[in-house]
């Protein structure tokens, strides 16, 4: 569904949710829940789609964003940079009920982008001399050492946009952009929750941030 189709990309929330399956790896946009598609997250909870691996910058709050999935115990493994704002995440982690993989935020962003742009990986100085090094190849370039970081993909990406046109082109608002444009490139199925859906051709080609070809389905937020 990535390109421009005869079929419409704008679907019902029910239709979109029917494509998300138990046990999948799901990327969710947002930073402390700003830029998180809450309607889609709520749908996962209603349908109790569990055993998920969730990739998000953070687990937000107990009553907001990805944090709600933690509280509802639908996450098997969380991959992100920060869990400190949601005490439930730490509790489940320490109880051995939730696996947590912590990644420096910039490395997380670029690992997702790497998957999207077809890199085999990239070299970063971030994490050198820390536990982040563990299990990673070190490569020296002109006397400086870097860690080789690998791409990170998902089965599904759930994104939040301010505006979507009918061909899937997206525009974001303020701090709600964060990981959304990166995740749009790095998942097999990309579902967008948009505050506003506008006709094809009503966005200026220069103001579009995410090209519509990355987007499979659009749901009104």
């Amino acid at each position, binding site marked *: *569904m*990535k*390109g*421009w*189709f*005869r079929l419409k990309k704008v679907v019902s929330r029910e239709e979109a949710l029917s494509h998300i399956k138990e046990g999948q790896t799901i990327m969710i946009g947002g930073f402390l829940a700003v830029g998180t598609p809450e309607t889609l997250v709520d749908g996962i909870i209603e349908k109790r789609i569990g055993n998920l691996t969730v990739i998000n910058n953070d687990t937000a709050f107990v009553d907001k964003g990805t944090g709600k999935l933690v509280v509802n115990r639908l996450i098997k493994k969380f991959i992100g940079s920060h869990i400190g704002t949601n005490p439930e995440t730490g509790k489940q982690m320490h109880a051995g009920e939730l696996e947590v993989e912590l990644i420096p935020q910039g490395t997380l962003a670029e690992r997702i*982008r790497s*998957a*999207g*742009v*077809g*890199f085999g990986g990239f070299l970063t100085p971030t994490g050198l001399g820390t536990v982040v090094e563990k299990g990673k190849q070190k490569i020296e370039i002109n006397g400086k050492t870097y860690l080789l970081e690998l791409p990170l993909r998902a089965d599904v990406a759930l994104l939040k946009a301010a505006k979507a*046109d*009918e*061909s899937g*082109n997206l525009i974001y608002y303020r701090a709600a952009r964060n990981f959304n444009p990166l995740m749009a*490139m790095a998942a097999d199925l990309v579902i967008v929750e948009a505050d506003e859906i506008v006709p*094809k*051709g009503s*966005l200026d*080609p*220069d103001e*579009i941030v995410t*090209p*519509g*070809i*990355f987007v499979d389905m659009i749901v009104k937020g």
Partner: protein
Amino acid sequence: MTAPRELIVKRVARFLKDGDVVNLGIGMPTLVANYVPEDVHIVLHSENGFLGLGPNPKPGEEDPQVINAGGQLVTILPGGCCFDSAMSFGIIRGGHVNVSVLGALEVDEEGNLANWMVPGKLVPGMGGAMDLVAGAKTVIVAMEHTTKNGEPKILKKCRLPLTAAKEVNIIVTELGVMEVTPEGLVLKELAPGVTVDEIQSKTEAKLIIPEVIGSME
């Protein structure tokens, strides 16, 4: 009878599926856009930085900052969008282009492609071709079957410097359609009036002949 180039680009157009993101190379591949069936909606990618590449502008409506990768004045269709070169090639390398159609100087039975230089003579540079051939999901070579002097261009092994190794999937010429497989080149279709002997005689690589060969038209 249909002109050779028209036969080629018409057949290539029929490989495109509804929803495909397609990059058409400079020259003959550009013409493919004119023959896409009406019920097939594709998005054309212009590697200099936009999606939604449209036809040439009407006289008086030219915009000097809207060109395709060949430098021709074009248009951007409703729903199109612009981006920088990293995004443009991220789209290519990331596997978001379904089909890349390119010309070739040489192509061989392993799917190797040479189309960017002739040492000591022609060194235009690879431009975006190496990324396109390495990155697109399906690579279709669209070219005339032989050189102007009648020499084969479909070889056992490319002799010119490669654009990419083992990335070509389909070869379409005015004589037929060939598919690159691990076993070699399989002759899938023949153009009207062309025999197996004729196409083989103009092809250096040994063609694999299946029991049923389709018709190219």
